[in-house]
Structures are given as structure tokens and as C-alpha cells.
């Protein structure tokens, strides 16, 4: 390890060069050959310093000798201080300053050269600073133009301001405080450096840098802040070079824009705004002097916390300005100056919308072409509605917790924090007049890790002791409430002064308020709220809590939509001329592999209904309302196009046109939601339905400005018309989705049916639970599920359907939308364009019959022909004679029994245990006794000679399903259903 003297002389070598020969500065010396040269340079440096300090006539050596002559020194007493042997300094002075021969050199110049060479290796490119624009803080406004968030890189919260916009006196204030000889020196102020060296020898406190503004820039932007001699050497050399590359004005501009001034502000412009609520160009000299004084220690001289210190510092800077002649004598030195009036500190702190703001940055890049929104100071007009955003986050967080509690999956790991020590400190530091108990003050000052979780922090004040005891917690408003802890692990682990999250149940009537423990859920979810007409994303929660996971599951994740994709098939069917009352079979069905070539048995696809049941005939409406898989798949068979493959192609095209997917993988499970989708795209599709075909482009940015100029604006024309489907079909679909709430899988919120349409979705094995619903104004998409871990999916558990766990989250969100976005209105009637093609009349809900029977009647809108006649397609897919006429308890209209005994819930049929251990109806194996529909491999139905003779056939000539025995090991049973 090099001795400190080697380091000092290597530093002196750098200093000698930058002060005496900056243009011929060498960064490399040869250890063997250059020692004489180095000695000469040091000598020149010493001469320069003596001249700089005007001490050429002073016998420094004599002074050193006197200091060395310590009358109190005793034998053996060390003369070293800070690692420096003073005798060596004296020798070095003689050697390098006086050019005198010395018997034993104080320092080995070879070592000095080695150290210097090492320090100057790979010097940063000083030219980088030329024209450098530092990152800026952008402001994100909400949809009303109110400030919502700031976006900036760590330690780069600034707004760049040109030097010309900074008042000259303010510039001088900074120079007075930091670098008085700025305009005289060439990057290094040798006087300041020597002063700092002496000061650092003497001071045991924080080392001084003695750095010029140029050095500070080099340190902050290029060489780093290590407190090492190597860094000092690099800093000096690069600073010297910077002075040759940048003008003084450029250096000062860079400095004033880069320096940290407290209140989370980098650079003078943001500091001016933060402290004084004005722009830098409006600063008075006193205000500028206050900011200039903060450069030395923004926290120590913080005018908010230490006004007296700030005053003294201000006085210091003002006195320096007076000394410099910038201020008249009567403007300084008259006691403590009054601090300039500060505006209250608005901490750039928020507790909502973190995923949203991330999305703003991404969209600025993807749509606005702005590589980094933090590269400059932009003003982003976003689409967020803060009130709705808060409601969305609260609903999602509570909904996820509710799911885990109901599923018995709560896993309490630890408290959010323990404030035991903080409470002790608060007790010791009680301020007069503050009546709050110590725990309350400690809780108020606590910074909890989950800053965007909207439950109430509560501190454990009492643990139950014995029977009948209760947990009691304190909350920030000072109340002490009973806490219900319904988790055994929590009961065991929680300790005094632990902070937990709780939901407060306020007192009702005579009942007292109480707190309910809330535990961080493992399950995840997302909620996005879209404005139908514009595509503005009004609110978006990308997960339970941003600090736990920054993944935005609304825009960055794809998940299987399950039944939530079904409206796509029904839309295509309606456009194909089917009506909501068209009857469709809900019988088992097997589809052969797509394309030509030999098919293997495992390539056939046999979907199942969610409940495992099947059979019967039902209207399109009821099939969608109740989310029947088999009925949906049956639509492929002539409901959309003439063949399943053609139907699949049509659905693919429609999905692409509606921009649900960027590409469509042709496989049948697609129609039941096997193909993962982004929640935001699914939301946009539902908004398309609400808009009768106009697909809005979801976006979070309306416009971006820089320096008052719009640099990006969302193009309202980016909405696209899904032109392959007409308004009438969309409207019909909308009314069917309204029925999902009225009496379908979302009937738990049937009260909202007049105002909302929507669809639940549950993917295979309940890995995903969805509900997407829309009102006239907004679409809300809710997804719940576990993140895939190591490629494995985790089920939400039996019964965890969209209807059960996503719908309860949707409900408060849509209520909040009505409160904060647009009032609740009944779903709009058909548009004029749709109305032209529709005629609405009351029909029987279950049968779809236009003659009302004793059943439930609903008003259904039918597509009409050019003559205004309703196109009757009720029996287009199912023959009238095959309809049994009575609907069962589930509301399914049954198909007539046949010799093979099929029908829904065929208890006597063949069932098997699938791979998940569930008892399910069997799929059809062409190689086994027939029992269900079978499509020929080449698009020709019923061509398989083995079944040609098998009666009976359906109206389309297809074989009916026949009950069959099922081999428990039957492999098709493992195929997924959606």
C-alpha cells in the first residue's frame, strides 16, 4: 500500500501540471526515466504555489523547522499526524521546493509515478459535458390538469434552466458561497486546495474539498464522489480539461442545474419553485443567496427544520456578496437577515397511481417517441382521475384480501414494522404542548414499506392476556380500538408496538368502532378503468401494491381470459345473422385437429362446461349469460361460418380487427379463452361493444409539452371502427351482456343490470378470474390470479370464479366511476345506426319464442331485413322438433330425448375421472362407441365410415352422442377446458 506521502505527492504532481502546464498535461510517466521530469514538475508547482500565495519572500522552511522544534517532545514521541511524518514534509520541501540534495528522499518518485499512473488510467471524457443536458423531472397532470405526480430519475429531480434565465446577482450569490475565484481560475483554485489541505490536516470533522465549481461538476458527473487521492487527481485533471472545452458560462449553467438544494430539488429552477413558488428568473438576490447557502449542506441548513441555521448561512452569503461589492454595505451585516418567505414544502409524495405513472413513461416512449420521460422536464397531461384511482386501488386491495380470507389462504408472515424503539425515542423527546402519546407520534412518523396500500396502519398497544382479553391497537388519529385477529399465526407472532394494517369498521349506532387485521395477500390482480368514447385510462391498478411488484398486470401481463372472450364468438354469430333467441345446443362436442394430414387421437379437442354438465338447447342469450362452453363451441358449427375452421378463421380476423390480439393462433380452445390476453386489450374490446363498434385506443397520455410546446398529442383518430360487424350486432351483444348481470353469472350484482353490461371469465383450473363490465361511460376490467412462478400456474381454487371474486371488486369501482366520472345512467338504447336494423319485442326468455308463454318475458332486439321483418333464426341451428319444450331448473331448454338418452345432465351416461380427479362427462373417441358429435377430419361431417350407419342424426346430419363407457385412463380427459 502506498504511503500517504506518495499519494500527496502524486496529487501535487497533478496540481503542479494543471497550474503550470495545463496544455501539456501528462497522464503517463515512465517510472525509470521520468523521475527527473517529475521532480522538475513538482519544483515548478512549488514555485507556482509560492507565487500564487505571494510568499516567495517567506522562509517557509524556517517556519517548518520551528514548528518541528518541539520543546515538549520526548524521546519516542510520534511526530506523525494524519499519517504524515512532519520530518518528511520538511525534507520534501527542501527536495522539491528548494532543489536541495537530500540524503534520504522523503518519497520515492517511482512510487509517486506508479500511483499517479494508476490514478489517471481511463480518465473520463471531459468532452461529455459539452452540451450535456441533465435528466429532468417531468410533471404528470391528471385529467383536470391538476398536478398528480412527478417523474424523475433517482437524484435527478430537476428542471433545466438556461443560465440566461438566472438573474446575475443570483449567479453571483452561488459564486460567493462556493467559488469566489470562479472567473479567475482555470478549473483549480490552488489557494482553495491548499486551504482545504491544511484544514483537513487540522480538522477531525468532515473533510473539505477545496473544490471549484468546475471540480464539483466533474466530481458529480464524471469521476464520482470517492474520498480518495485517486479521485482528487482525476478530478483536477478532468476539471482542467473541462475549462478548455466549456466556457465559464456553460460550466456555471451545468453547475446551477445539477447542484442539490434540498426539498428533493436538484438544480436552481426546481429549488426556486419548491422554496419560493417561483421560477429561477424571478428570484431576488436574498432568495438566491438562501439557495446558494444550501449548497454546503441542504439538510443541515434546511430552512424548514433549522431556520436559525439557514438565517446564519444566508447572512454569510450576503456578507460575501457585500465583500464582493454585489450588495451595498447596508444590505448585509445588520444582524440576522429575515429569511425570504418560503412556500410550504409540498413533498413529491403520493400514495396512489404508481403503476399508472410507470405506464405514462412507457407510453411516452412507445407512442410519443420520447426515449425517457426523465430526460427533460416534460409536462404530461394524463388521463388519470385521482379519486377513481384511489377507489380502484382500495377495491382491489380489499378484494384480494377478501378472496384469501374466504379461501383460507391468508399467510401472515410478519408485521409491517415494529416501533418499539421509536416509541421509546418519542417518549424521551416529548415536546411541550404536544399532548399526543408517544405511540401516536411514533406511528405518525413511521414510514411503512407499502406506501400505496390504503388500509389503516395500526400499532399494537395491548395483547390479550387470558381469556376474554382483546387485542387493542392505536391508529394515527389517536383512537385506541379493539383489533380482530382471525389468523392464528398473527396471534402468535404479533408483539407490542408492531404495526399492522387494518380495516376500520366505524361505529354504527351504539356499536363501537373496531379494526380488522389485514394481511398482505399473495394473490394478485389488476383493475383498469377505460373511458369508452376516448380510450382514456381513468384509473389503473397493476397489482396489489407497487413496492411489492412493479409489474403492471393490466398492460404488461397476458392471462387466459376464459369465458371473458366469449362475446367475440357471439358477436360474430350475431353478425352472421343469428339472433339472441337463436337456439344452440349445449351438448358435448369434439373437434378434429385443424388442417390436413393424419390426426392423432390426442389432437382432437373436446371441451367441457365449467360445471361439467352438458346437454340441452338454449338461446344464444342464455348461453352467453350462463357462459356455456359447449354452446359456444357449437356456434363454430354453422353459427359463424359454415365450418368450424372457417368460423375459427373468422374469429381470428375479428379478434385482430378489434385489436384484442396482435396475432391470432388458430386453435379451437381460443374461442373459450385459452389464448392469453392483456387485460387492457380485453377492456378495450368491451368498450368497443359499449361503443357499438368503435374501438378506442387505450391511453394514459393526452399530450406532452416541453417548454410550453406540445411535443406529443394523443390522436383521437386512433380509435378504429370494427367495420366487419355492424352496429346492430354490437347492440344485440350489449343487451346479452346486460343479461349476464341480470340473471347470469354476474347476477350477484343484478341490481346494476340496468346500467351495466359485462361478462365473467374463469380460465382453466380457476387460474384466472375475470369480470369486465361497462356502463355508458366507462369499462372496468378486473382480473384476479396468482402470478406464474417458475412457469407454473397456481389455481385460485374450486369455486373461485370471476363471478365470485372479480365481480365484488368491480362493484365498488363502477360506483366510484359514477361518483367521480359520470353519473349513473341506464344503458343507452341502440344508436340510430343500430336501430335501423333492429326491432325489439317481448319474447320468452328461455325458449326464445316470440309468443309469450307462462315463462319469463324479456324484450329482445332482433335484426330485421330490408322490409322490416324480423329475421327468424330461432331454429337455424337446432331443429324445432328437437326442442323438448320445458326448461329445467337451471333454465336450460332441453333437447328432446332420443333413443340414446342424451340430454343435459345425463346421469346415466358415461363419465370418467379426469386428470384432476374430477368426474366429468366423457368426450367422444371416434375409435370407441359413439356418443357425441363428431366432425370429419376434412371438414366433411359424418364421413367416417364407422359411423355412417349409426342413427339417429341431428338436423344437420350429424350423429348424436351416445352414452358410452369410459376408460378411467382415457387420455383426452386431460385436455383443458375453458
Amino acid at each position: 500500500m502506498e504511503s500517504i506521502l506518495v499519494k500527496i505527492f502524486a496529487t501535487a504532481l497533478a496540481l503542479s501540471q494543471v497550474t503550470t502546464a495545463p496544455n501539456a498535461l501528462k497522464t503517463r510517466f515512465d517510472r525509470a526515466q521520468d523521475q527527473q521530469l517529475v521532480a522538475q514538475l513538482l519544483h515548478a508547482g512549488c514555485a507556482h504555489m509560492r507565487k500564487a500565495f505571494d510568499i516567495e519572500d517567506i522562509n517557509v522552511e524556517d517556519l517548518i523547522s520551528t514548528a518541528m522544534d518541539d520543546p515538549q517532545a520526548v524521546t519516542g514521541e510520534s511526530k506523525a499526524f494524519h499519517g504524515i511524518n512532519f520530518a518528511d514534509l520538511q525534507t520534501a520541501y527542501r527536495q522539491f521546493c528548494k532543489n536541495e540534495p537530500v540524503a534520504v528522499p522523503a518519497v520515492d518518485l517511482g512510487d509517486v509515478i506508479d500511483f499517479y499512473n494508476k490514478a489517471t488510467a481511463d480518465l473520463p471524457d471531459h468532452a461529455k459535458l459539452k452540451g450535456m443536458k441533465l435528466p429532468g423531472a417531468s410533471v404528470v397532470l391528471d385529467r383536470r390538469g391538476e398536478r398528480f405526480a412527478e417523474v424523475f430519475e433517482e437524484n435527478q429531480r430537476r428542471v433545466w434552466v438556461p443560465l440566461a434565465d438566472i438573474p446575475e446577482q443570483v449567479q453571483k450569490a452561488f459564486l460567493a458561497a462556493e467559488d469566489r475565484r470562479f472567473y479567475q481560475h482555470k478549473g483549480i483554485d490552488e489557494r482553495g486546495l491548499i486551504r482545504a489541505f491544511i484544514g483537513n490536516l487540522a480538522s477531525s470533522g468532515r473533510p473539505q474539498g477545496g473544490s471549484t465549481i468546475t471540480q464539483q461538476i466533474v466530481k458529480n458527473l464524471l469521476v464520482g464522489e470517492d474520498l480518495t487521492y485517486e479521485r482528487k487527481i482525476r478530478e483536477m485533471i478532468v476539471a482542467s480539461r473541462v475549462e478548455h472545452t466549456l466556457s465559464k458560462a456553460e460550466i456555471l449553467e451545468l453547475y446551477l442545474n445539477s447542484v442539490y438544494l434540498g426539498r428533493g430539488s436538484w438544480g436552481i429552477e426546481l429549488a426556486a419553485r419548491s422554496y419560493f413558488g417561483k421560477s429561477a428568473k424571478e428570484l431576488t438576490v436574498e432568495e438566491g443567496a438562501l439557495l446558494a447557502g444550501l449548497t454546503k449542506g441542504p439538510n443541515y441548513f434546511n430552512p424548514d427544520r433549522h431556520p436559525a441555521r439557514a438565517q446564519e448561512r444566508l447572512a454569510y452569503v450576503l456578507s460575501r456578496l457585500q465583500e464582493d461589492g454585489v450588495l451595498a454595505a447596508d444590505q448585509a451585516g445588520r444582524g440576522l437577515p429575515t429569511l425570504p418567505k418560503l412556500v410550504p414544502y409540498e413533498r413529491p409524495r403520493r400514495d396512489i397511481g404508481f403503476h399508472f405513472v410507470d405506464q405514462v413513461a412507457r407510453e411516452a416512449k412507445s407512442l410519443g417517441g420520447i426515449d425517457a420521460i426523465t430526460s427533460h422536464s416534460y409536462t404530461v397531461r394524463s388521463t388519470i382521475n385521482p379519486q377513481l384511482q384511489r377507489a380502484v386501488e382500495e377495491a382491489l386491495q380489499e378484494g384480494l384480501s377478501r378472496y384469501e380470507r374466504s379461501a383460507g389462504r391468508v399467510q401472515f408472515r410478519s408485521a409491517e414494522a415494529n416501533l418499539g424503539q421509536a416509541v421509546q425515542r418519542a417518549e424521551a423527546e416529548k415536546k411541550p404542548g404536544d399532548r399526543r402519546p408517544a405511540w401516536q407520534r411514533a406511528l405518525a412518523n413511521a414510514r411503512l414499506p407499502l406506501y400505496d396500500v390504503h388500509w389503516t396502519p395500526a400499532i399494537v398497544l395491548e395483547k390479550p392476556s387470558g381469556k376474554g382479553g382483546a387485542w387493542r391497537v392505536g391508529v394515527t388519529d389517536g383512537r385506541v380500538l379493539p383489533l380482530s385477529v382471525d389468523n392464528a399465526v398473527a396471534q402468535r407472532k404479533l408483539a407490542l408496538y408492531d404495526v399492522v394494517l387494518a380495516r376500520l369498521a366505524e361505529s354504527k349506532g351504539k356499536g363501537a368502532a373496531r379494526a380488522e387485521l389485514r394481511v398482505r395477500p399473495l394473490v394478485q390482480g389488476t383493475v383498469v378503468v377505460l373511458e369508452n368514447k376516448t380510450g382514456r385510462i381513468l384509473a389503473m391498478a397493476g397489482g396489489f401494491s407497487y413496492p411489492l411488484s412493479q409489474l403492471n398486470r393490466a398492460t404488461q401481463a397476458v392471462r387466459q381470459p376464459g369465458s371473458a372472450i366469449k362475446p367475440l364468438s357471439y358477436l360474430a354469430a350475431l353478425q352472421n345473422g343469428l339472433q339472441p333467441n337463436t337456439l344452440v345446443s349445449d351438448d358435448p362436442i369434439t373437434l378434429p385437429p385443424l388442417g390436413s394430414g393424419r390426426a392423432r387421437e390426442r389432437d382432437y379437442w373436446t371441451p367441457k362446461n365449467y360445471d361439467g354438465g352438458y346437454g340441452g338447447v338454449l338461446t344464444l342469450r342464455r348461453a352467453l349469460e350462463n357462459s356455456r362452453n359447449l354452446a359456444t363451441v357449437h356456434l363454430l358449427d354453422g353459427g359463424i361460418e359454415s365450418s368450424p375452421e372457417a368460423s375459427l378463421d373468422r374469429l381470428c380476423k375479428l379478434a385482430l380487427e378489434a385489436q384484442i390480439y396482435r396475432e391470432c393462433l388458430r386453435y379451437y380452445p381460443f374461442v373459450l379463452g385459452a389464448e392469453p390476453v392483456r387485460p387492457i386489450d380485453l377492456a378495450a374490446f368491451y368498450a368497443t361493444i359499449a361503443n357499438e363498434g368503435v374501438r378506442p385506443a387505450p391511453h394514459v397520455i393526452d399530450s406532452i409539452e416541453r417548454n410550453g410546446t406540445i411535443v406529443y398529442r394523443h390522436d383521437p383518430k386512433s380509435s378504429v371502427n370494427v367495420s366487419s360487424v355492424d352496429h346492430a350486432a354490437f347492440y344485440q351483444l350489449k343487451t346479452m351482456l346486460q343479461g349476464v348481470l341480470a340473471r347470469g353469472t354476474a347476477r350477484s350484482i343484478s341490481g346494476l343490470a340496468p346500467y351495466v353490461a359485462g361478462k365473467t371469465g374463469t380460465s382453466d383450473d380457476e387460474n384466472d378470474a375475470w369480470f369486465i363490465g361497462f356502463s355508458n361511460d366507462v369499462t372496468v376490467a378486473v382480473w384476479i390470479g396468482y402470478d406464474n412462478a417458475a412457469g407454473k400456474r397456481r389455481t385460485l381454487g374450486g369455486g373461485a370464479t370471476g363471478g365470485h371474486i372479480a365481480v365484488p371488486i368491480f362493484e365498488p369501482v363502477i360506483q366510484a366511476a359514477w361518483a367521480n366520472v359520470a353519473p349513473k345512467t341506464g344503458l343507452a338504447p341502440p344508436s340510430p345506426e343500430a336501430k335501423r336494423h333492429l326491432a325489439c319485442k317481448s319474447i320468452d326468455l328461455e325458449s326464445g319464442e316470440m309468443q309469450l308463454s307462462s315463462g319469463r318475458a324479456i324484450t329482445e332486439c332482433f335484426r330485421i331485413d330490408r322490409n322490416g321483418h324480423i329475421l327468424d333464426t330461432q331454429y337455424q341451428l337446432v331443429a324445432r322438433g328437437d326442442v323438448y319444450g320445458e326448461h329445467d331448473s337451471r333454465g336450460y331448454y332441453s333437447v328432446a330425448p332420443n333413443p340414446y338418452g342424451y340430454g343435459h345432465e345425463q346421469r346415466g351416461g358415461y363419465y370418467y375421472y379426469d386428470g384432476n380427479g374430477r368426474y366429468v362427462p366423457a368426450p367422444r373417441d371416434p375409435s370407441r362407441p359413439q356418443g357425441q358429435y363428431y366432425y370429419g377430419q376434412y371438414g366433411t361431417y359424418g364421413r367416417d365410415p364407422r359411423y355412417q350407419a349409426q342413427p339417429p342424426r341431428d338436423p344437420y346430419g350429424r350423429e348424436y352422442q351416445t352414452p358410452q363407457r369410459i376408460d378411467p385412463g382415457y387420455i383426452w380427459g386431460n385436455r383443458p377446458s375453458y
Partner: protein
Amino acid sequence: MIGTPKRYAFLLGLAALAAASSARVEAQEFRIEEATSLAALAVEGLKPKTITFVDRPGDELIDPDVGLIRFEDWAQAKPLEKQFLTPFPSYLEPTVEATVDGVRKRFKERLHMYVGEARFALARPPDSIDLASFVSLPFVERIDPAVKHNLITPAEAISAKDPRAAHNQHPLRRWCEARPVTICIHSRYQFEGKLPIGIKIANKLREGAKKIPDYLEFESELTFRPAAEIAEMGLANLTGLDTPPAGALEQNIFYINQVMQFGKLLALFQAHPTDAKQTVVTVFIALAIESGVLAKKKEFVKVPVLRNLVPAQVLAGKSSFNSGNSISAGLPVYARNQVKAIASILERK
């Protein structure tokens, strides 16, 4: 070298203070006998041509950081000394105003006292000494040739205009006035040895226009107090000797340009209790040093080399920068030399 330039300069400045002076010893025949207690000053123990000198009568009052007594402690423990060795009996540590880093501040100027007490016997009866004749410039000049003096009128005093001396103004009269036998002196002492160089380099290093002077400038009143006045004042109580006073010479330094706030030299002449042919002279030297000066960089007192630059060390005469026989030699040397010079002059006259 020490500290920031400002500190550094200040240190050297103080070092210079201490180093100055060569209280040139003309009275070669007198010698100093060091004493460690006031009891040693008992007249019975006095030896011919010997000055018994004590400036550390006990460690219990000494501030160990600087080797001097805090003014407050001194005033409490030695009320008589406080009464008679300060510029006037009601003197308190002053509240001063100073601009520190641009801020005009009022603060109590804390002081540390150097108090030396010496006693010797002159082989002359009290009535043979014309004390009033010593109130003269030549007498002062002979005490310490290193210090240059000139007579001034009270109106010429700097102190009247310098706020630094405002609190030293006598509450009942102007200095140098209203006393029958009084002269007013302006004095200047140029630091000696290497102290001026140190101060010069410190001034080169430091920022700002204000420089540290490499000299001490002071103003004082030298007056004669007759026996009646001494009796009236009770001044003789200070000596602990209850023989009749013959008179006293008193020099009040009411203005010093740096380092100190005031100084007093008091020589009390009393009859010898047993020998009418002798006169007992008790000399007090009190110097009030600004505590802020002493506080500078106390931590270096224990660091070899650097401790040489610490003001307290220089004032204590423990620095290699001490030189000469006057103030630059440190206060203990300076005080002893002062007394020796006075004794010698008195002996010869």
C-alpha cells in the same frame, strides 16, 4: 499547519502575542523565586534581592484546557482581586457585538485570567521612595524596551472610538483624566521571533480582507495612588499585609487591539512589619485573555509539532515559536520579567 487559513492565522497571531517581549531585565541582581502558594509570599520568608513569584497558587481553580482561570471562577474565588485588578470594581465580562459570517451578533465575551503576584523587599524605607515620580514615560520604557510607548492625551485615545474598548470605559470618569498624577500612554509591541512570519503566511492563506495584525497595540493609564486613597479603597487588603501603605503605582490597560480585553499592573508599597528600613512591594499583573482565542484548536495541544501553533501553548510559553523576553516569550516569562525590571528600577532609584 493548522486549521483553515483563518484559524491558522489566528493561531499564529496568538502565538506571536505570547512570544513577544523581552521584558528586558535590567535589574540583574534580582532573581525570581518560584512559589506555588500565596503563603510563600509571607514577609518573613522574603529574601534579599529575591522576588517571590506565584502565578499558579493552586490547580483547583485552573481550567486544565488552557492553564488559566476562568473569569467567573476567579471573580467568585478571589473577589478582592476581581475588585481591584479589573478596570473598575463593577467590571463584568462584557457583552460584545461582532459580525461573524455576515451576522452581527451579541454575545458574552468570556475571559480567562492570567494573574501573577510577586513580592519583594526594597532596602529603602517607604518614605524615601517618590512613587509619583515613576508616573513617567521613561519608567515605562525601562520596564520593557521591546514595547514602544508614547504619551497621548485622553482625547487621542483610540479606545474612545473603538467599540472593542467601549465596555472598558470607566463608569465614573474618562481614563487618564480626573486623577492628579496620571499619564496616558499608547504602546505598540511588534511580535518577535518567527511569529510575524507565521502571521504573514497565515494572512496569505486566509480569505477575506481582514488580516491579523502582527503586533499588539494598547492604551493605558499609569497613575499614582497615595496612601490615603489606598486606605480609603481598602486596596491594601489585597496584599494580606496589614502594614501601612505608602502608595501604589497602577497601570490600567484599557484597550488592546487583539487577544486580550484588559490588563492591570498594580504595585503596592507598604511598610515592612519588622524593619522600618525596608519597603515591601507587592506586584500584581492581571491579564484578561479572550477565551475564544484559547479555545481555538485545543485538540492539537496534545499533538506534537502542531501544538506549537496553538495559542494557549504560545501564551503559556510552551511553544517553539516563543522567543525573546517580552510578550512573545509567553505570559509567565513576560510577567516575571516585568516584575524583575520594576524591582530593579525601584532598587536603583
